[in-house]
């Protein structure tokens, strides 16, 4: 069974908070907002909306693009660290809201910015082993619920979004290989007790040093070189992070999409938001995706496009 990524849909809330409005509070100038943070405005959900509501909206966008018989969905995974409730798992709530069948396996994965790479590997492995046919992989991590708007390290960065990736046969994109890593000793550097706390310097150092090495390792493992890769889709932590990884890998900027200026860092949704756009690019053959953050956790993968 050759399972792959058949379709992706995105939900970005319409509401935005402009970082330009807050620049004086944080002593930022326009250049810092646009070219360093890379977030001019953040997408913000309605206060009463929960993770599952965002998933449902992403799913509604999916069925506008792809005819899906929900009675055939036999696997549903939600990647979130902001679940609707501590108990039960959010995927069960999504299962109810989009009326999935009783024989559908549902579970959540608690991961942040590395979540999409882990999620793809998980859903495809789980479906293959259990001979499942049609899966939905959701990402939904609305950080607006855990951000202190007065914290200059976190408030200007994060936005709300959800995505859904439809996993099935006869797909266009396939997961060729994935590798993962964790640095648990640094777990306190990005943590939510009451509100999100981030040690910016530590996260920057981790990303700038670990991720380029990790991507090189992935390429070597697969006997690939930079010229074999058409695009590198990095988690959109900030523009500075994306630019730094790009410089350290010595890869051409045109291969590295940057897309967060008008909605922010959407955690596990950042990679599928870009991938959804890149799916329309018929010239792509191989892409690297790489997610990194909370944990500290990271995962990188090679996606093979069959046009």
């Amino acid at each position: 069974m050759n399972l792959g990524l058949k379709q992706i849909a995105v939900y970005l809330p319409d509401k935005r908070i402009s970082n330009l409005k807050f620049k004086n509070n944080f002593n930022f100038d326009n250049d810092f907002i646009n070219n360093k943070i890379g977030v001019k405005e953040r997408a913000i959900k309605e206060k009463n909306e929960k993770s599952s509501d965002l998933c449902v909206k992403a799913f509604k966008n999916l069925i506008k693009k792809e005819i899906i018989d929900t009675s055939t969905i036999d696997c549903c995974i939600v990647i979130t660290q902001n679940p609707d409730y501590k108990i039960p798992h959010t995927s069960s709530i999504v299962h109810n809201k989009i009326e999935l069948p009783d024989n559908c396996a549902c579970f959540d994965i608690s991961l942040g910015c590395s979540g999409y790479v882990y999620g793809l590997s998980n859903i495809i492995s789980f479906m293959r082993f259990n001979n499942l046919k049609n899966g939905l992989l959701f990402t939904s991590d609305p950080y607006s619920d855990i951000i202190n708007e007065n914290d200059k390290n976190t408030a200007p960065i994060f936005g709300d979004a959800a995505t859904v990736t439809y996993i099935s046969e006869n797909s266009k994109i396939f997961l060729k290989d994935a590798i993962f890593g964790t640095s648990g000793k640094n777990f306190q550097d990005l943590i939510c007790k009451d509100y999100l706390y981030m040690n910016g310097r530590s996260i920057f150092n981790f990303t700038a040093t670990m991720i380029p090495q990790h991507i090189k390792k992935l390429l070597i493992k697969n006997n690939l070189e930079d010229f074999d890769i058409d695009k590198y889709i990095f988690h959109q932590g900030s523009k500075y992070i994306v630019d730094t990884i790009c410089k350290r890998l010595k890869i051409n900027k045109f291969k590295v999409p940057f897309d967060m200026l008008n909605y922010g860092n959407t955690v596990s949704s950042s990679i599928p938001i870009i991938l959804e756009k890149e799916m329309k690019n018929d010239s792509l053959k191989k892409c690297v995706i790489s997610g990194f953050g909370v944990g500290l956790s990271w995962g990188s993968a090679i996606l093979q496009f069959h046009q």
Partner: protein
Amino acid sequence: MKATSDNIREIIAEADILIEVTKLKNDILLKDQGADSLDLANILLLLEEKFKIKIPDQDLDQVQSINAIIEYINNKTS
């Protein structure tokens, strides 16, 4: 390797900050000469890598100007 004004400036240039490195003054805080928090994080990481040292968060106030960086690194590596 000993830290000098020249090699510290080379490292600052490598961090690709928007300020022209030749115009930087050794005795003025980098943040008062236009370096932002991300520039400083990048400069510190490059210093750690080039001089094979660790600059812990509690020492950050000791590495805020070129002169201070030179003194800090030469003390640490001597």
